[in-house]
């Protein structure tokens, strides 16, 4: 009888992390950023039906990169968590902090206890009454949570995109300005190469708009994106 190999816990965790990171790096990036009237979500996604960006509750939305079936699972859980809370208590008692905690616990447990970690990275955003009350939480495959300010970039091509936003992001931009900047950032390539061409039909974009009553989430249609991007190009 052969003796099983000893593998140290550090090695197991490192292997799982590498595995998850590789999976996430294969996907296209999604960015989340603050603008004057709320929070903009924008990512490259040619599909009209399989969303990476979704509404969770009145003032809360969700963006994800990685493996579709895994983040879709988390999205369902988030909507159910939020609707249950809102029904049990009151609509105003549903917070992104509570949701981020529930996600963190779930992702952390999956990472340590199951053989295969989730290959996902998600952002939970909540729009407040004023820009100072906006909240952005970034969650990674192992359940770590970070509260971010200004913008979050997730996915394979995150560094060049974050590089553009670091220089140019301005939370007082209006919606048109924010969308234009988002598309410019998404088009950035590593090593400051020639930017790629991104068509409005290949984009998925949505906002949490604090000026809307009750449900603040709204998708930006391809027509709307064409208008915004067309105006900024000319």
């Amino acid at each position: 009888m052969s003796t099983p190999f000893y593998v140290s816990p550090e090695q197991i965790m490192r292997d799982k992390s590498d595995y998850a990171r590789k999976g996430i790096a294969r996907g296209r990036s999604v960015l989340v950023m603050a603008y004057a009237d709320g929070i903009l979500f924008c990512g490259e996604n040619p599909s009209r039906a399989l969303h990476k960006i979704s509404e969770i509750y009145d003032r809360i939305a969700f963006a994800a990169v990685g493996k579709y079936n895994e983040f879709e699972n988390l999205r369902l859980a988030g909507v159910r968590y939020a609707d249950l809370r809102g029904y049990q208590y009151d609509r105003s008692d549903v917070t992104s902090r509570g949701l981020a905690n529930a996600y963190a616990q779930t992702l952390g447990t999956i990472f340590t206890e199951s053989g295969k970690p989730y290959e996902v990275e998600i952002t939970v955003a909540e729009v407040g009454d004023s820009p100072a009350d906006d909240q952005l939480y970034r969650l990674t495959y192992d359940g770590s949570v970070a509260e971010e300010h200004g913008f979050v970039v997730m996915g394979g091509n995150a560094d060049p995109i974050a590089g553009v936003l670091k220089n140019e992001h301005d939370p007082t931009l209006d919606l048109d300005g924010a969308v234009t900047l988002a598309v410019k950032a998404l088009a950035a390539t590593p090593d400051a190469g020639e930017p790629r061409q991104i068509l409005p039909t290949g984009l998925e974009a949505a906002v949490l708009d604090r000026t809307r009553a009750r449900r603040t989430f709204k998708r930006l249609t391809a027509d709307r994106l064409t208008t915004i991007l067309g105006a900024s190009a000319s």
Partner: protein
Amino acid sequence: MAEDLGLHGRLPAHYTAAGTSSFSDFLSAAAPDLLPSRRPLPAGATVDAPHGTTIVAVTHGVGGSAGVIMAGDRRATMGNIIAQRDIEKVFPADEYSCVGIAGTAGLAIEMVRLFQVELEHYEKLEGNVLSLEGKANRLTAMIRGNLQMAMQGLAVVPLFAGYDLDRGLGRIFSYDVTGGRYEEHSFHSVGSGSMFARGALKKRYNDGLDEAAAVKLAVDALYDAADDDSATGGPDLTRRIFPVVMTVTADGLRRVPEDEVAAVVEAIVAERMIRPGG
């Protein structure tokens, strides 16, 4: 919410289960004690609770201007007592439908809350809106769940109306206590004053109504209901309490602002000064 987080704080399996987009189905797995139907009265017991009274709905128009309006008086009664004089009994169900309630107010309001979450939950999970028939059927299931309470005197009888985006017209659905669902044409009314309201609607309704005329017709019918039914509240001009009126068209749901309803009510009261019977 510690009870939500199972072993090691992870969200339990039914949160991530695929296959259902119904909030009630999810509740029955995650928190069954929150379902109204899981909290029965002790056998044989009856309680006195506030009752909501009269709701009317009227469809109007064809083509682009088609829609439906719903209006309700503001009174809740408990036996011979007026339990509340400014209760609201017409609620938005979602962007294209509304629901009015008659019967036991507490149970009905809870049912409406669950119904609202049910519709929004489906919309968020599925990414598209339920058909109007689909919404009407969800309400059936909830009323059926309340049958035991209804047999102990706590019936809930809603009226559901909405704009059918596929057919481009306003539609009205009524229910019985067992959850039986019936589509009504042109107009309908439920609650203690419904007999008088329906009589008024029948005499004054015609196919050529526009939205403003339909609003006036509905408020007129409520006035007639209050005239003959002690449980229906008439317009309260001293306290400025007027019926709740909602309109649903292709543009979505809108609650008619109070000053617009006030103007309609004042015109009706002025007419009744000359002809009290309308």
